[in-house]
């Protein structure tokens, strides 16, 4: 019974941690736009958390540049267990126009398992919100799996 309650509330209160691995800030402002009154992600209980320790969903924007590669890996390790990685925008999914640049260390796939990817070069806030909703289901599964 208690686990059922925790699973439901895990889905209902996803805390977002936004990580910028070299993005052009297009998707970053879209993420923050999702929290503004017009789109209001807080309806789903979303809250922008300050540290990876508080995070449930990690929003990663930007092609993983060489410099931010090991910081990305270190931060992802510091997130407590049931967490979901969400690649926002085309850059993390496939390094977009920066594909073979000398300073880009390849798509996010290489460094962690991406659960949800939202594409769009500067994806729409609605797409991000839909991604978060999809992520919450995945969170629920992960939480159930964790309990077994």
């Amino acid at each position, binding site marked *: 019974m208690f686990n059922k309650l925790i699973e439901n509330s895990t889905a209902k209160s996803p805390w977002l941690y936004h990580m910028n691995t070299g993005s052009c800030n297009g998707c970053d402002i879209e993420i923050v736009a999702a929290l503004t009154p017009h789109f209001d992600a807080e309806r789903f209980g979303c809250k922008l958390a300050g540290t990876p320790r508080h995070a*449930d969903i990690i929003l990663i924007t930007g092609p993983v540049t060489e410099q931010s590669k090991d910081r990305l890996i270190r931060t992802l390790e510091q997130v407590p267990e049931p967490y979901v990685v969400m690649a926002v925008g085309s850059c993390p999914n496939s390094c977009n126009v920066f594909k073979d640049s000398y300073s880009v260390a390849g798509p996010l796939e290489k460094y962690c398992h991406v659960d949800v990817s939202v594409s769009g070069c500067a994806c729409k806030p609605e797409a991000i919100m839909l991604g978060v909703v999809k992520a919450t289901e995945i969170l629920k599964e992960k939480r159930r799996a964790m309990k077994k």
Partner: protein
Amino acid sequence: MEILIALVRILIYPGLLFVAVGGLLLAGIDRILVAKMQRRVGPPLVQPFYDFFKLMGKETIIPHHANRTAYLAAPVIAVVSLAVTMLFIPLGGFSAVSGTADLIVVLYLLTIPAVCVIVGGSASGSPYAGVGISREMVAMMSYELPLVMVLLAVAKKVGSLSLQAIVAYQFQNGCMLFHWSMIPAAIALLLVIPGEAGVQPFDLAEAETEICEGTLAEYSGAPLGMFELNHAMKIFVLTALFTALFLGGIDTGIVPLNVVITFVICGVLVWLCCSLPHAICARLRIERLFKFYWTIVAGLAALSLVLAWFGL
């Protein structure tokens, strides 16, 4: 038998469960009101419950630099001490425990959660927590002065330092808020409550943008859930204290009805002193916060103290 009653009092009615549920509900109301004031839809009313149970389910990572016992014990002691504070505050004219000078006991019991947050943050050993601690402590130093002045002003007006006597006084000659000399004190206490509860314009200790959640930077899972509960309970306890001090005179004979009325008043107060500043103002710098409390709010409180002193 007396121990059993006392145990029930601590754990159920005015104690842990009541304050926790009430606090989380008030926090929910607060978040909805802030959203409404920004023309947003805002989370459902029970969102704080979801947050709390989600955090209970998450894994607790105890960092290497942390001191394990202090790290785990701090949140629990904070929550328990808030539960005990609620015993002293007369809800609807009846308080579980009452003795002489329990205004001062309440004042000091309210510092324990702040100290627990500080010790917890310092025990987690992160540099962000260090900055959070120094801000939390300066904030505490700043809002303590006006809070003390308000309590002494009310005590002077009533003639004794015990909350029970204050409520009895208000039964006879009307709520304290309607005595015009007490209005500055009421305003001062309304401005102190967000500072003490750590609500947006004054939440320098847990500023998520500047110092990554300050003192709670290294907390995750169950202890963090306890601290969220602590934050919610503190809002409830403070607003209940305000109602006891300034609106104690409302009495409808039936105690449960009184408690409901008190809760409604607390809801209105939460809107007035927690959601309104949150929706309007940006976060203060630490020395501006200190100057704000020691000049404007302390001035208001001193005004009503002096008025009370000349018997008005």
